[in-house]
Structures are given as C-alpha cells and as structure tokens.
C-alpha cells in the first residue's frame, strides 16, 4: 500500500467518523438527559437528508405532514394530561407549539417548494421539519413513560425506530436519493482534495463538540439538564422543569441528526433505511465514550470511521462485521474497568 491510498483511506475515515461523531454526540446528549437510548437517531438523519433532497427537486416531502399529524397527537396528549386543570394560557401555549407551528411549517413548505428554491431555504425547512418531529416524538412516546427504567425506554425507542423507518419508506420510496452539494469550493493539499462539503462536516463537528461540552460542563441550563437525568424527582424539587429538559434534548438531537443527514446526502446516496446503520455506528462511538463523555465519543467516532474505511479497502465483505465487533472488546474493557454497581430497578 502506498502513502496516497493510506491518506485517502484516512481522509475517508475521518469524514465518515466526523458524521458518526455528530450522531454519537446527539446520542450521548439524549441519554444524559432523558436516559433514552435513541435508536431513532438514524431516522432523524434520513428524514433530514431525504426531506432536503426532495425539496431540492421541488417536491413537498411527506415528513412535513407527519409533523402536523404528530403535533395534533401531542396537543391531544397535552389536553388529556392537563384535563384536571385546564387553563387558557396552557392550552394556548400547547396549541401554538403543537398545532400552529407545524401547520405554519406545512403552509410555508407548500408555498415555497419548487425547483428554484434557494438551498438555504431548503436546509432551513428540512431542519425545522425534523426538529418538530423530534420534539413531538418525545412528547408522544417518551414523556408519558419518562420515569420508567432504561430498559423500558429502550424498547419504546426501538418501537419508534420501527414506525419511523416504515414511514420513511412511505415518504421517500424505496429508491435512494441524493441532494445537491452545499458548496462547490474545493481545496487541494498534496494528493488530497478537500471539498467544501467535507470541510463543512469537519467544521460543524468540531463546533458542536465544543458547544455541547461547554454547554453541559459550564452553563446552568446544561447542568440542570444533567441533573434531570440523574434524579428526575430531585431535579423537579429544586425547580427544574424535567419535561422541558427532555424536549430540549430531543430537539437538539433531531437537529443534529438532520444536519448530519444534509451534510452527507450530497456525498452518498441515502435510502430510507440507511439511517439505522449510520446511527448504530454513532452508537458504537457513544458506547466507547461510555455514554457520558463528549470528547471521548468524538475520538471514538473518528476511530470507527477509520476502521471502517480500512476494512472496506481490505475486506470489504466483512466491513460491517468488523465495525460491529469492534464494540465487544470495548464493552469488555468497560465492564472490567468499572465493576457492575448495584442498581435499584423498577
């Protein structure tokens, strides 16, 4: 093997790894706040990417209708749970968030959708649509069972993944889609060519890592979010609004997922079910990071990306096998390093 191939593989690995890092960060974020292991993270990726790709061809993606439908269900749940003390302000706020916002989104999407819509508008719309879905997903599926064990939340998470992936097929069809590039800038350094796309991937990943690390480590809101994860009741007693924390976490995760999707859809063709595998690789990174550490997750994600790039070069048939078995030695080391602690369950 010569240096050029080595460099190419490394570059490829780092670019993919950066995407896994973004997803890994989102997973850590959601887990740290809500204890939900967010399997549907991959669907946020495909929803963001394919909504963007469809908007770019001038079509209205089905995801925006899903956002409206989920908003209506979320509003119904809000009304149902507040039925003992219905106050006008509460109802109005809920209606604004769950009904008015997605319907406005739907109206704007239908109004502006067309082959000539600027890329920036399409990106903004895709992000908003996925953000709304993420927010409502928490309200509908997880908020009612927020107090249960990690396991119950995990199974619910798998349920959400199944439903969202199935809906993805309905919205986007079985054919893969590719989106237009965000910019056509390109830099050349030795044998390597850096496209504006991959530079955007690096830049955004680094920005998110630093931002999340600062936010959770140093800001009051960030600490409040972490407190929610450790002890919901305790957090509520000191005045933290735990449902709001969960909503913020899902909002951030869905936006991060959608951004990752929009970043990669110009590079590779995405299918409605691609997100699951991409999300799982983010998982491997998140698990290596112990589901707590942002910098460690990012490093692990880059590592996963590089391992994947090299194994696809040397043993392309066994690429997935190698990447997914990578997790086993890590898990063993983790469990050896931190002997099982007694958990009070149920």
């Amino acid at each position: 093997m010569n240096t050029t191939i080595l460099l190419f593989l490394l570059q490829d690995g780092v670019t993919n790894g950066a995407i896994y890092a973004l997803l890994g960060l989102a997973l850590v974020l959601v887990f740290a706040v809500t204890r939900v292991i967010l399997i549907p993270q991959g669907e946020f990726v495909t929803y963001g990417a394919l909504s963007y790709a469809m908007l770019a061809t001038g079509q209205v993606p089905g995801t925006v209708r899903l956002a409206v439908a989920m908003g209506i269900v979320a509003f119904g749940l809000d009304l149902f749970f507040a039925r003992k003390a219905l106050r006008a302000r509460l109802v109005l706020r809920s209606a604004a968030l769950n009904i008015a916002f997605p319907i406005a989104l739907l109206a704007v999407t239908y109004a502006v959708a067309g082959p000539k819509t600027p890329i920036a508008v399409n990106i903004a719309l895709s992000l908003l649509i996925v953000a709304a879905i993420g927010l409502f997903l928490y309200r509908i599926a997880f908020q009612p069972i927020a107090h249960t064990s990690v396991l119950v939340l995990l199974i619910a998470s798998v349920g959400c993944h199944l439903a969202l992936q199935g809906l993805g097929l309905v919205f986007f069809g079985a054919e893969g889609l590719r989106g237009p590039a965000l910019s056509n800038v390109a830099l050349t350094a030795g044998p390597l060519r850096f496209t504006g796309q991959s530079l955007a991937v690096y830049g955004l990943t680094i920005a998110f890592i630093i931002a999340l690390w600062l936010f959770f480590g140093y800001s009051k809101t960030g600490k409040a979010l972490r407190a929610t994860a450790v002890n919901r009741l305790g957090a509520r007693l000191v005045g933290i609004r735990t449902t709001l924390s969960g909503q913020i976490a899902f909002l951030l995760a869905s936006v991060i997922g959608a951004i990752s999707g929009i970043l990669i859809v110009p590079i590779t063709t995405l299918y409605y079910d691609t997100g699951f595998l991409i999300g799982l690789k983010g998982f491997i990174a998140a698990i290596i990071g112990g589901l707590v550490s942002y910098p460690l997750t990012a490093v692990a994600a880059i590592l996963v990306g590089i391992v994947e790039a090299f194994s696809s070069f040397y043993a392309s048939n066994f690429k997935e096998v190698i990447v997914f078995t990578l997790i086993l030695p890590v898990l063993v080391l983790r469990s050896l390093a931190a002997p099982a602690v007694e958990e009070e369950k149920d």
Partner: protein
Amino acid sequence: MTQRLPLVIFAIVIAVIPFIPGIPPFWIVLLDNIGLAALVAMGLVLLTGVGGLTSFGQAAFCGFGAYTTAVLTTAYGVSPWLTLPASLLVSGIAAVLLGIVTVRLSGHYLPLGTIAWGIGLFYLFSKLEFLGRNDGISGIPPLSIGGFRMLSPDTIYYAIWIAVLIAAILTMNLLDSRTGRAIRALRRGHVAAEAFGVQTPRAKLLVFIYAAVLAGLSGWLYAHFQRAANPTPFGAQAGIEYLFIAVVGGAGYVWGAVLGAGIVVILKEVLQSYLPYIFGGQSQLETIVFGIMLVLLLQLAPSGVWPWLMSRLPFKPARKTPDTSLKLPARGRAPATSGVLLHIEKARKQFGGVVAVNDVSFEVNAREIVALIGPNGAGKSTTFNLITGVLTATSGKIFVLGKEVENAPPQEVVKLGVSRTFQHVKLVPDMTVLENVAIGAHLRGSSGAISSMLRLDRADEARLLAEAARQIERVGLSDQIDQLAGSLSLGQQRIVEIARALCVDPMLLLLDEPAAGLRHLEKQRLAALLRQLRDGGMSVLLVEHDMGFVMDLADRIVVLDFGTKIAEGTPAAIKANPDVIKAYLGAAA
C-alpha cells in the same frame, strides 16, 4: 396433579387442531410459525423477564441452529436428527463465547452489546461463502421418522409443538427450583443473591446459554420447516421482534411467550394482508403499526397480556404447602462453643477522600448479642459490608473463627456461617415469602439446572422448602408464607429477611436495623427471638437506632461516630459514657 391439568388440556387442543375438518392449511402454517417464535420468546422470558438481561440478539442464535443443520445436511449428508445435538451445541457454544463477554455488562450496555453483535453476526451469515452468502442454503432435507417424511406444514407441526411443550415444561421446572430462585433473584440486583452464596455471573451465563439453546432449537426446526436457510430471518429486525413477542405476552411468564407469539404472528399476518388494501400497495406498513403498538403497549400495559388475563381468571392456582417434617442437615462447620467468632482489626474503608470506617477494631464472641450504634453516617452499614465482603477494606484485617477472611467475596463469607439482612430491604417482591426465604438455604441444596429441569431435584427441593417454612414459622410469619414479599409491610419484610438469613444456618447473624418499621409488640417479639437464638448458640451483631430496644437486648455495645470507634462496653456503661452522649446530643453546654 391438578397443576398439570391446564397443560394437558393445552396439549390435547394442540394435538387435535390439525384434525378439525375444513381447517385451512394456512392456519397450520401460522401455528407452525407461532410455535417457532414461542420457542425463542420462551428463552427471552427466562433471560429478560425473569433474569433481567435484555437481548436483542436472539435471532442470531436461531441462525446458528439453522445454519449448522443446513451445512451438515447439505454439504456432508448428515441425517437431520443427528444434526439436532450439533445445532444445539453450536448455539450453546456461541452463547458461551458471547455470554462471557456480554453478560458481565451492566445495565443498558448489555442490550446495546446484543444489538451490536446481533448485527455483526447477521452480516457474517450473509457474507460467508460456505453459508451461501445472501442466498443462503437451500435443499435441506426434511425431518423423517422411518419412511415418514415431514414435508408438509401439518406434519412438522407436531415436531414444533412437541418441542414447545417440552421447552415450556423444562422452563417451568427450572423456574420452580433452587437454581430458578437464584435466576429470579438476579433482576433485583446481585448483592442480596450473592450474600446467600449465589454465583451471579454463573447464573447469568446459565440463562444466557439456555435462551440461546432454545433459539438454536427453533432455528433447527425452522431450517427443516422451510428446507432452506438465508440470513434475513436472523437479522436485527427479527431480534427486535422476538423481544416484542416476549413483552407483549408478558416478559416474566412462560406461557406469555406462547401467547405473545400467537398475538404477534397473527397480527403481523393480518396487517400484512389487509393494510395494503387500506393504504395502497406500499410494503412495510406493518412495521409502522408494529412500532406504534409497541410504544402504546409500554405506556398502557407494561407487564403484558398474560398477567392481565390471569388476573381475570375466576379461580386462583393453588400453591403447594411444604411438609415441615423434612429435615435439612445442619451445615458442616467448626463447633463454636466459646471464644471469638468475629474479630475486626483496624478495618478501614475510604471512598476517595472520605474515611467511612476509620481503623475500627472490635470482636463478637460466641453466644453474644453485640450492637453497633452511632449517629447517621457513622459507618455502621459500611462496616457490615466490609465483614460480608460486599465492599473490600482499604486496609485492616477481618477474622472469622480465627481465620483471616482476606477480602473474600460475599459467596465465600456466607459459607463461613455469617449471614445478614439489609438496611434497605432486598427481597424479590414478585416471589412469595417462602421462595424468598428459601434463597437463604441456597448453599444447603445441591441440585443444579439440569436436574431441576428434569425434576430430579424434588427430594432436595422439598428439604429446602421445609427448612424455609420452619424458619418462617420461627419468626412468626406463617400466615404470610404464600403472600408475595412485595405485598407485606416494610416491618414484615425485615422479618422475612431475618428468616432468610436464618436459613443459612449461621453462627453469626448480622442484622441491619431489624426493628425499623416494627410496632412495639413486634419489637418485643423480635427481641425474644434474638435472645432465644443466642441461647441456642448463635451470635448476633446488629445495627439499630431504637435505643430502648438495643439497651434491653445487647450484651455489649460498640459505638461509632464519623467512622471511628468512640466507645465499647455494656449497655449501662455506654449510657453513662460522656463521649457517647456528646456524639448523640452534641457537647454539653
């Protein structure tokens, strides 16, 4: 044999179904699929519902079973029946290898780990040349007895359902045994089980292997039913579906697996055939409905359909009453008639910078009740955890009967005749008082998993239950013997813990706040029981906050404050000790 009656009826119904005139052949295919899924789900019931270990990777074990027979029968021409042990063995060995790695994982790492290797194995199946890559292996011979070949769905039907029934019987037998109680205690954390000698890692590995072997059996049957094997049914999606089946049926119930398989397989069929009519020809619509239903189910009925159904039955299944005349031989041990039982020498425990126990030394003699008192946070429970091996001491030595314990694990400490109760009650709430107490006698039985499944353990089991019943009678809870431990008051649960500790046949009993939550009369009864135990030759070391109770009962008192021993002596001397008064009431003005 009234307990076996529902089973016999079920078996007869299953046997008769194919003979119902006019039954559509398609229904039989569905029933075959239900049986296959039920086998896997039954393993998950034991693994997840009972043992608390969630696995999304069971489908991969089906794959091991199916591919083993596929390769052996097609490439080497081995007879299908001979491949059965091979299939079970291969899935079992795979489970040992994966289990050693994964069951050690705590909490949510375990399900994530199973997802990871589940997907990894799926890709392995679909890439290996000798497994036929994505196309798989076809032309697998059918099962046959003599000249009778099980080619059609209604002939292999019997093979499948006989397997289901046998698996159900073996699983129920296993759960209702010494090993089964150890497995059932796993879900509530390992500390309590280990305090009575249960080797929790081994118990976890055991259920993991058992679940994998059942999945392997299902895979073997599947291969001969489809007469082909390809990677698709052994992927992550299928693994998720099996877990779904177990949750729908009721993850803690053997028959929940069969019920869940029935509900899910039929539902899937209905959805697959009718949804396209309603929503146009799109595929995969059933997964949407599936996912939504899974979420709804967790919100509305998290424990599944089977327990819901059972609670609506007009009659309650009768419980067996143990024959208390059976004697369990006392544990072999050194006679402890006099002298020092427990000697603690400068025991120290630091958590980071906090010294929880600061070079504490004291002794407990034979036939003595020693109380360990002190304000909250004095290090009393930590001292207990050091003695019983739950925590390892930072420095210092602990001797039992003159022999140094040297940071032995809890399972070894209990063998020395030291048993304990917990400050925060650690019972299995959905097991009866009798079953909970019988865990205490774990080390005094010897039957393993295989003999339990085959019901060869009954003599051993009867003696264990008799001993448990005797100890329950001794602490005065005979009326509650068949109630679920979770339904008792907190005070009564503490007494159950004492009975469980007595089942060890200990020479030293460590009681952590036994009188908390008891009423006055109950405290008097407890004090009388402890005195009676002491007079019978047992020693007691107890932590307690009720000073009246302690002063009346203890022969000697050790006082801790901020991890340090500040006084030791008779109750009268302690009452007059100025340091003790200062520690409890603050400095005198």
